[in-house]
């Protein structure tokens, strides 16, 4: 396997001779091997979809949630190690509450993304901690409009029109690029996200699809996609998949 840095990968505070921090790269691997998470910025909002593999039939559906509201106008989806991701979500909630308390207004999306990226980056600097094995897709809708950010384990934050992370990200990104996002409403976006996640998922194993959005229709609040729309989206996704199978 390429990338095993003998001796230079034991600590996050050690560079390798070719200028890499292997612990950060390994953290990224943890994300890459996890369930796929998709985010798209439509014309009236942002849609997040999380593919959650169901480990056992005895699990009650809907538990172990992967999308969280940070405040009314921001939410996050976790990819990778969900326990790590939840710590980042908690930090984001604290940042948002503290900002509102001090400045009297809601934290803008780009300010929060920078704060969280800085926070995540901290864990790549010191030997006595390890990097988070999670990446966050952050959806926000403020006076600047809807925004989608990706914060990676290394501590970088980028703003996207649409992106995917996790196992099926390559083919998911290809599918996203085919969409005309500036013309898509979030209602349509939810269906597209469901289709993409059903396509990239390995059919044999059961999985749960968690959909969340923030858009004009949700009153600019970050929420789970309403159950009826989510069910309809899954239905359409499965139908499209069967069509592809037959053709």
């Amino acid at each position: 396997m390429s990338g095993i840095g003998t001796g230079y990968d034991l600590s996050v505070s050690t560079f390798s001779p070719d200028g890499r921090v292997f612990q950060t790269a390994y953290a990224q691997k943890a994300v890459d091997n996890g369930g796929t998470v998709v985010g798209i910025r439509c014309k009236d909002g942002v849609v997040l979809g999380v593919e959650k593999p169901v480990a056992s039939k005895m699990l009650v559906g809907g538990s172990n949630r992967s999308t969280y509201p940070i405040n009314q106008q921001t939410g996050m989806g976790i990819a990778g190690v969900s326990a790590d991701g939840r710590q980042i979500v908690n930090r984001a909630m604290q940042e948002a509450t503290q900002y509102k308390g001090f400045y009297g207004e809601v934290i803008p999306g780009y300010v929060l993304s920078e704060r969280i990226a800085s926070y995540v980056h901290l864990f790549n600097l010191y030997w006595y901690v390890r990097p988070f094995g999670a990446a966050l897709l952050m959806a926000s809708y403020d006076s600047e409009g809807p925004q989608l950010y990706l914060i990676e384990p290394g501590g970088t934050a980028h703003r996207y029109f649409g992106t995917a992370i996790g196992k099926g990200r390559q083919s998911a990104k290809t599918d996203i690029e085919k969409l005309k996002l500036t013309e898509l409403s979030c209602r349509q976006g939810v269906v597209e996200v469901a289709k993409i996640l059903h396509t990239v998922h390995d059919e044999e194993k059961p999985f749960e699809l968690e959909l969340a959005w923030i858009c004009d229709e949700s009153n600019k609040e970050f929420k789970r996609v309403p159950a009826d729309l989510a069910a309809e989206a899954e239905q359409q996704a499965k139908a499209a998949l069967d069509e592809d199978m037959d053709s």
Partner: protein
Amino acid sequence: MTDSSGDWTGLQAPATGTTIVAVTFDGGVVLGADSRVSTGTYVSNRASDKIAQLSDQVYLLRSGSAADTQLVSDYVRYFAEQHAIGLSEPPSVKTIANLVKQMNYQNKQMLEGAMIIAGWDREGGGQVYGCPIGGTLLQEPWTTDGSGSTYIWGYLDSAFRHHMTQDEAEELVITSISLAMARDGSSGGVVRLITLSKDGARRRLVKGDEVQLYGEELQMQSSSMDLL
């Protein structure tokens, strides 16, 4: 001014016994203040500027302890500038008003200042926030504070109109402060005005002898021998 026991009796810290007024109009906000600073009965400054700039389009009117309000305005100016760097744009009036409130509220044991924050931003237009002693923050269409304000609440209640023009608003502020200066011994001097709108900030001065007199205030007379 010490007595035989060495106490500094009779000497008080400089205070802006003051009249400050801020009024919104259609398209902006007008701020006004008198200019008297008193140390007890001694007027230490008859032409002070009680209007402090916090950012390009947000200003602060100060009343109460001169030292306290100057420090608060310095800190808020600093915080606002830092915040603007992080935001890559000027903070909103609401945000800066909140910074003033935080200073006042978190340090309420030590501070004695009543302030009015007024400004203009693109999203909210002209806004006035009252921040009295103790650190409440309340947005209002107009407000007044300081020792002279007690005499003009009723006048402003009856004379304020929503959607005034800039000229009407400026006249209202000048008249209010003139009335307060006529009755409040701690207010006087000149009337300083600032008008904020999308066109920026405009200062105006109404000099002492141009201030309207009310009631039985003495008119300037060259000599009582003029009768002859």
